[in-house]
């Protein structure tokens, strides 16, 4: 598999490590239901057949966390963005 790192370009999947679904957001730790919200955040994941946005870490490259759009049925990759939300790399 090859992943389109927004900073480095298309690279072999061996350069990356995988985390999982990018959708869960760290809940507000001060909320009254924080215990339940954190339980869901840490343990509950969907297992979609189809499109999913996933977190990958380019550890053997630019060390950026990226979000990859992948189809779990075909492994087709539609694109990738920085997880930090910035539109481009800190190209220098």
């Amino acid at each position: 598999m090859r992943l389109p790192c927004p900073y480095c370009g298309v690279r072999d999947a061996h350069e990356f490590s995988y985390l999982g679904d990018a959708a869960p957001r760290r809940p507000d730790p001060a909320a009254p239901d924080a215990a339940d919200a954190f339980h869901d955040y840490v343990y509950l994941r969907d297992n979609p057949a189809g499109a999913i946005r996933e977190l990958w870490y380019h550890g053997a490259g630019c060390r950026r966390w990226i979000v990859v759009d992948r189809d779990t049925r075909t492994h087709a990759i539609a694109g990738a963005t920085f997880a930090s939300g910035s539109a481009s790399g800190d190209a220098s």
Partner: protein
Amino acid sequence: MSRLSEGGLIDRSKPLAFSFDGKAMRGYAGDTLASALLANDVRLVGRSFKYHRPRGIFSSGSEEPNALVELRDGARREPNSRATVVELYDGLSAASQNRWPSLDFDIQSVNGLLGPLLGAGFYYKTFMWPAALWEKLYEPLIRRAAGLGRAAEAPDPDSYDRSFAFCDLLVIGGGAAGLMAALTAGRSGARVILADEDFRFGGRILAERAEIDDAPSLAFVERAVAELAALPNVRLLPRTTVFGAYDGGTFGALERVADHLPLPPAFTPRQRYWKIVAKRSLLCAGAIDRPIVFGGNDRPGVMSAQALRTYAVRYAANPGKRAVVFANNGYAWSAAFDAAEAGVDIAAIVDVRPEAPPIQLERAKRRGVRVIQGGQVVATSGRLLSSVTVRSATGEEKIAAEVLAISGGSSPNVGLTSHFGGKPVYRADIAGFVPGACPPGMRVAGAARGDYSLARCLAAGAAEAAEAVSELGFSAYATPVPQARDNAITVTPFWHVPGSRGPAFVDLQNDVTAKDITIAHTEGFRAVELLKRYTTLGMATDQGRTSNVTGLAMMAVLTGQDVGATGTTLFRPPYTPVALGAIAGHHRGKDFRATRPTPTHDWARAQGAVFVEAGLWLRAQYFPRPGETDWLETVNREVTATRTGVGLIDVSTFGKIDIQGPDAGAFLDRVYINTFSTLPVGRARYGVMLREDGIVMDDGTTSRLGERHYLMTTTTANAAKVYQHLEFCLQVLWPELDVQMASVSEQWAQISIAGPQARAVLEQVVDGLDVSNAALPYMGVAQGTVLSGVAARIFRVSFSGELGYEIAVPARQGRRLAEALMAAGAPFGITPYGTEALGVMRIEKGHVSGNELNGQTSARDLGLGRMASTKKDYVGRVLSQRPAFLEEGRVSFVGFKPVNPGDRLRAGAHFLPHGRSGTTANDEGYMTSVAFSPLLGHWIGLGLIARGTERIGESVRAYDPVRGGDIPVEICHPAFVDPEGERLRV
């Protein structure tokens, strides 16, 4: 010798000596082992898998089900080598396999008599009872009887390489279509890789007597290869099998670099595993002949029509004295004519069709070849084939023949197209499966698509390649295409001769018979995937390339479905077997993974250190001295020397992360359970970080080097994991924080000196820096220079519990620093120590380490709960407050000492109350770390036990059934040495 007197693509000026089962033989350069065996009149090559029936050579390619041999000897012995693709070299030695005592007389051919017991599903039916006998008797017996070759028993002495390649177009298969494709794409300037499993490009052209542009087709091949070789943007990979299609246009390929040589030359691998990334790919893998099923169709001498033609035309090897051709299609006729012209005596062409095409009849007549239309082979005879019995409208007739060349039609080589799950589609007009949905970017041309005409192969190769590279922006032209003439090939589906006599094999490699298919049908295993697993049809090294289609077509006949609806099993990588050694490449033995020596590695080796692997690192474990009899004696000396004088250890392996920015303090507050934003500049603090689920992830000291500048240390094992976690926190959780990080683990050498004399040693290496207790107190950090100008950071921290300093210098100065410290410490008897002594001292001091940070413990479990700040949020805070983590009966971290001081403690022992049995219900916890304390003179331990801190002084059982241990131990405070920490602060 059955070598034809002329012709063939063999070099008669280069004779090669080889042996088969110890018998000396001769062949020529250009031969395969199979062609050379046939030319030496060897017709019996192996014994079948289950029934040990005599078998010969069936095919001329990688689909071979029968002719598997052990190639080479000793450490280089390779079982299950297909003789049909083994390129002959001088000195080659091969042996038949799966026979005992000899190939000619195999005692287990009696299995043939047991056929009724070994039929479809025999694994599930025959040896069911009593179950106890399965492992002891049935399985060993079956395994010995049903065998393939023997693997080498010594380590492989050869090397294997791995290479990566990138191209615009990967052309798989270098026959007519593949050569035209590579030429078309290559001329456009696209980067092209052309791979072919054969050692010679040309595909079927090498075996067919055809003309291209009114000249022998071989001339076209030579021209094409010469032009391709001259194009700088084209890479030719002969002897290379593309065995798998993977995501993102990635392909796995195996190049047999030196398999055709007596020995790999120096600095040359035997095989090379290619990872090819191709923007587009074009499969031109051709097609293979498949058999017709009839009684006695497995005798040595029965081979595919394609094989007969190939041996006669390409290798000038006559497979037998007279040949009968049995077919249902016109391709087999032209094979017969080519073989006849090469010198094979064709006794008859038997075609199941009542009326063969007139043009074929005309060609047969012109050559004087007898034709039996509407005929079927119903029996064969001879241990090695001697005659065939043909049934036709005029009755039965026995025809003497040593070769029976059969063709039930062609099966396109669709394997790679279904590696992404694409299902091959049945085409009734060619009675074969053609590619369905292909992997992204893959096209198919030529016979692999069911297009068997030479003219159309040439045109399609050019056209598909032109389209593929045009999509990438290249200007490619699919003209001019060389012209070839060939006749339309027709086929009438025909699978199985009903009423034929003797066992009729569908799958030669697995000894699956027509009867097995019937049994599978009767017993309900009708779906193709079930049929495969119940009968073993299509398994093992050939993956049923000559048998699958026939087998499932026969099932279709039984179920009354058409073949297309019955479908075919999916093909998965690898296309042909790949040696694990080739995939491992250089990553074996010590080179399985990288080794990281510490900056003082060479120095430690010179001191006689024994090393231990810590992840990728090699660390000094202990430093034995002459006269010391075991490691414990050495470690005791090192500990005692450190506690009473001064010791030295390289701690460079700890992870070091440089963290800078206006929000660095706030960031650390969010990842550690304790607070770092309040840490004064020039001070260090011990920190604990959790995973978000509340379990401890790592610990270590973090220092504040400047207002916006921190340096974190992590454990050796978790350095990479913690760094990745911090990047996650910064980039994913809190991208608004203004913080930058870099791993500096490898930039700094760090050496710890510890013991009452540590300061006296340190004072001699610093450049005028005040390191007094007042200027550099416990947990203080100083920056300056040492050794006359070497930048250094000095951390007054201690893992051993003694007065200690860690001195960090640029990595290249590490050895110099170690030597300077040793010289400065010589008057105090400074002693280098290793990880064992460090471990003893940290256990004596009651520090947690990897054994306690084991992915199951919370900060509270480890007695670190009070460090957690209640004034802020941090990773893992919310879930660390879950009720289960706060339960009364939960384990806590305490020390253990033997009630009888002579007893040895064992890590891993479980704690039980006295008088209770060793069951899970009575389990109260376990010992995590143990050491012999030279200071106390007995073994000590650390561990986790229920309500441990409340039970100091209580005695429990340390129960260790695995090693037969069961001793009383007393629960105690985990700090055995200096619990108040006075030694740290002097």
